[in-house]
C-alpha cells in the first residue's frame, strides 16, 4: 500500500503524517502544485497552516492544483483522510459537509482527549476500538453543520475542547471514503512520544486497501 501525503506551503504535520503512514505502508509526498497523485492508494491532507491559514483556514488550499486531483480521486472512491487543517481543507473543498469555526475559547488548545468511535463501518475505523486517546491542537476546530452528517468520532463526555456541535470530532461523507477529524492520530502512534491509539486509523486504511487489492 502507498499513502500520499499532501504538502502545501505552511503544512506542519506533513512529516508526522508520513512517519505515521510509514508504520503501515509506503509513502509518497505530494506537492501542492502536482497534477498527479502518483498512483497512491490513499491520500492524507495533513495538519498545519496551509498558506498561513490566511483569509480562512483551508480556504486557499482548496484551490491548489493537487486538490483538483484529490477531488477526482475521492469521486472515484479513493480514500482521503483530512487531519485538522486537512479536515478544514476538505470542508472548504466540499468533500465533507459542514465547517470548522473558532474554538469557543478563541484560543489555541493542545490537549490529550478521549474519543468515542461511534461508526466502525468506515475504511478508517474498522480496526479501531470504541475509545481512543489522541491529542488535539487547533484554534479553529469547532465543527458546525446545519445538515445531517455521518459522524464517526465524538469527544467523550467532558472532553470536547472547542465547543463542537454534538461533541463531533470527526465525520465522513455518505460513501465513507472521505474522512476528516480534528484530533491528530499521527501524533499517537509511538509509545515513546505519547499514546498509540492513533495507529488504529492507519491500520484500518491498510486493511481496507488490502481487501480492495484481494477483491
Amino acid at each position, binding site marked *: 500500500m502507498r499513502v500520499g501525503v499532501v504538502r502545501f506551503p*505552511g503544512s*506542519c504535520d506533513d512529516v508526522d503524517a508520513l*512517519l505515521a503512514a510509514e508504520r503501515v505502508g509506503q509513502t509518497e509526498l505530494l506537492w501542492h502544485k502536482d497534477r498527479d497523485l502518483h498512483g497512491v492508494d490513499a491520500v492524507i491532507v495533513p495538519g498545519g497552516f496551509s498558506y498561513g491559514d490566511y483569509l480562512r483556514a483551508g480556504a486557499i488550499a482548496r484551490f491548489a492544483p493537487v486538490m483538483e486531483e484529490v477531488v477526482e480521486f475521492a469521486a472515484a472512491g479513493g480514500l482521503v483522510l483530512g487531519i485538522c487543517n486537512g479536515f478544514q481543507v476538505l470542508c472548504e473543498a466540499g468533500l465533507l459537509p459542514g465547517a470548522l469555526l473558532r474554538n469557543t475559547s478563541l484560543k*489555541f*488548545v493542545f490537549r490529550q482527549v478521549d474519543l468515542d468511535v461511534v461508526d466502525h463501518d468506515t475504511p478508517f475505523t474498522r480496526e479501531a476500538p470504541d475509545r481512543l486517546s489522541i491529542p488535539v491542537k487547533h484554534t479553529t476546530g469547532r465543527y458546525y453543520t446545519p445538515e445531517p452528517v455521518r459522524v464517526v468520532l465524538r469527544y467523550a463526555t467532558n472532553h470536547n475542547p472547542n465547543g463542537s456541535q454534538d461533541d463531533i470530532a470527526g465525520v465522513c461523507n455518505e460513501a465513507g471514503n472521505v474522512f476528516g477529524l480534528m484530533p491528530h492520530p499521527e*501524533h499517537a502512534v509511538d509509545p515513546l*512520544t505519547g499514546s498509540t491509539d492513533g495507529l488504529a486509523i492507519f491500520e484500518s486504511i491498510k486493511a481496507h486497501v488490502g481487501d480492495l487489492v484481494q477483491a
Partner: protein
Amino acid sequence: MSVTSSRHRELGLTDSEYELILEGLGREPRDVELAMLSLMWSEHCAYKHSKRLLRRLPTEGRHVLVGPGENAGAVDVGGGLAVAFKVESHNHPSAVEPFQGAATGVGGILRDVFAVGARPIAVLDSLRFGDVTQSARSRYLLEHAVAGIGHYGNSIGVPTVGGEIYFEPSYEQNCLINAMCVGLAPRERLIRSAAAGPGNVLVLLGALTGRDGIGGASVLASAELGEGDADKRPSVQIGDPFAEKKLLECCLELLDRGLLVSLQDLGAAGLTSSASEMASKGEVGLDIDVSSVPLREADMEPFEIMVSESQERMLCVVEPERVGAVLEVCEHWETLATPIGQVTTSGRFRILKRGEVVGDLPVGLLVDDCPLYDLEPAAPEAPLYPGTPPVLASQATPAEVLLTLLASPNLASRRPVFEQYDPVVQSRTVRRPEQADAAVLALPDGSAIAVSIDGNGRRVACEPRAGAFEVVLECAANLACVGAEPLGLTNCLNFGNPEKPHVAWQLKEAVEGLSEACESLDVPVVGGNVSLYNESPDGPILPSPVVGMVGKLPDASRAGRLGFAREGDVIALVGPFQPAHTGSELAKLQGQAPAGRLPFKDVPAILDAQEKVRSMIRSQALQNAHDIAEGGIAVALAECCLAGGLGARVALPEGLDPFGEDLGTGFVVSGDPEALGDFPVIGRVEGKRLEIDGLLDVSVDKLQSAHSGGLDALLR
C-alpha cells in the same frame, strides 16, 4: 575636528563617540552613515557595557562545535548530528505590543538557529511580568504575549516544549520575553556567517522591506522628510510565520544542496548589522545597492532601507555561477530572492543608490571601533527591592501554607499557558510540560537531548553571584532528573541600567556567578544575549540572568519522569539540600524583601548527587526524580503527587524547613527499596493524600484544585 551637530545625540551617540566617528572617517558622516553607525554603536549591537564582562564566561569544551559570535552556538550530540541553540530577549517590543513583540521574538530566535543550518526542533520561553494578582496591565501582557508565542511557534510547526514564568512587581513596566530555540543539523550542514570570496553575490531572501522597527532612527526620519510625527511611524515589527516557514524550508534546502557560501539572519538594525557583521567576520568589503532591495513602500530613503527591521529576511553570499540555482530553489518555496550587492576586497561597506555611492564606511569602524566601557560597580548599602504586601498570615497552618504556595502565581500549574502551545509537532517530544523537569526530544539513533530554561530574579537579587550560580545548578539538576548530562548553555542577561553602580554590581556579580558555575560543572557557554536598561522610574527590574541548558541522554525511552509512579515505592531525599527561608517564595508571600544570604553550596556533593540521580534514571533504578525548587521540599513532594496522581507518607529529617529553598541541590526520588541503595529514605508512595508527619495531611484532590486554579483564575 569638532562636533558641529547634535543629531548624533538624538540617535543615542555621546559626543565622545561622535568624535571617534569623525576621527575614523575623517569627515562628517552622511545621513545613511550616521544612521548605520548609531545602531551599530548601540548597546544592543555593540554590547559596549557588557562585552568586557562577557569575556569572563568559559566558552570552550569538548562538545562545542560553534561558540559565541555566530547566530547560534552548537554542540556535538554524536551520530554525526549537531544541536544549535540560543536564547534571546524581545523585552521592549513586547512591552509596547505583547502579541507581535513576543511573536517576532520567537520568529527572530528561530531565524538565528536556521541561519547556522539547523532545523528548529523546539522553542522554550522564559517570561516575567508584574504582579498579575494586582495589575490588569500585567494580565493583559501575559495573555497576549502567550498568544503571540503560540501563534508563531504553532503556525510554523516548531513545538514549544517548555519554559518558565515569574511574576514580580519590578517587571511591571519592563516585562521580559526571552525565547530559546533548539535546532538539529547534520554536522556538515552547519554554516557560518562570514562573507567570503570577492565577486560573490549578496542575495536577500524573504519578505519585502518596509518601515518596520525604524524607531531608533526615527528622529532622522522626520528630519529628512520634514513632515509627520516620528512617533507615528510603526516601530514594532509584525510577524508572518507563514513567510518564515517558507523561508526556513528554503534556506535548509539551499544548504542541503550546498549552494551557499554563508548565511545570516536579519535581526536588530536589519541589513546594516547583518551585512557589516558578515563583512567583518570575513575581513572583506561589501557593496549594497538599496535600489535593488524589494520594498513594501516605494518611497523609502536609503537609511530606512539599511536599518529597517522588517521580519522574515535572511542575507546570503552566493558564488555567481550558483545564483541561478539559488533563485530556482527560492521560487519553489515561493520565497522572494534578490541579488542586492556583492563582496569586495575594499574592506569598506558601500551603500549605493542606482549605482551612485550614498554611503561609504570602513567595516572596522562599524563593527570593531565602538568604544567599550568599564562598569563602575558598587554594592548597594540597603536592599534595592521592597517586600510586597503579605498574603499569608504568620499563624497560617502548614497545610494552608502549602495550598497557598501551590495556588500562588509563581508556583501554580502552567497548564493554562502551555495548553496554548503545540508541544508535539515534528514527532520528537518524549517529555512535555508537567511530565518531567526538562523537555526531552528523541534523536534518530534512539538517544535524546534534554532542554531546560531557568532563572529566579528574587534569589539573584538577594545575592547576585550566588543566585546566578544557583540558576546554572538548577538547570543541570533539571537535566539530571531526566537522565541527561549537560553539553552546553546559553544565557540572556536581563538587567537594569548598567551605568548605575548598583546595577553594574549586580551584572558583574551575576556574570561572575555564572562563570564559576560553568567552570564547576564543566559546561561551556555557546552563545547568548544581553538586555540592559530594563528600568522604570520605580527602579531596575530584579537582576534576571536566564539560562538555557542542553544535555544528552543515551536512551530516550528511559527519560525520567516527575510524578510518583507506583504505590509502595520508597521516597528518598538526595543531595546536600540545605534549605533556608531567605529569598524563598514563602518569604515573598509573607511580605519579606528579597535580601540576605543564600545557602552555601557544597559543589562536589552537589555534582555527586546530580551524577547519582542521572545514572539511576538511566538504569531505571528510579521511578521518578524531581529537583526541589521554589516552595521547598513540601511543594516538590506535592508536585510529584500531582504529576503521578498518587499520595505519599513522609517524615522529614529533623529540623528541615519544609518550605525553605536551596535550588539545584536536592532531589525527591522514588523507587524500589533495594534500588535506592543508601539514599536517605523519607517516606513511601501510597494512597491519595500527602501526609507529612507532624506537619500536614492534605488530599491530592485538594492539592490539585489549588495548583490548577491559581493561574487559571487570573487568565479568564
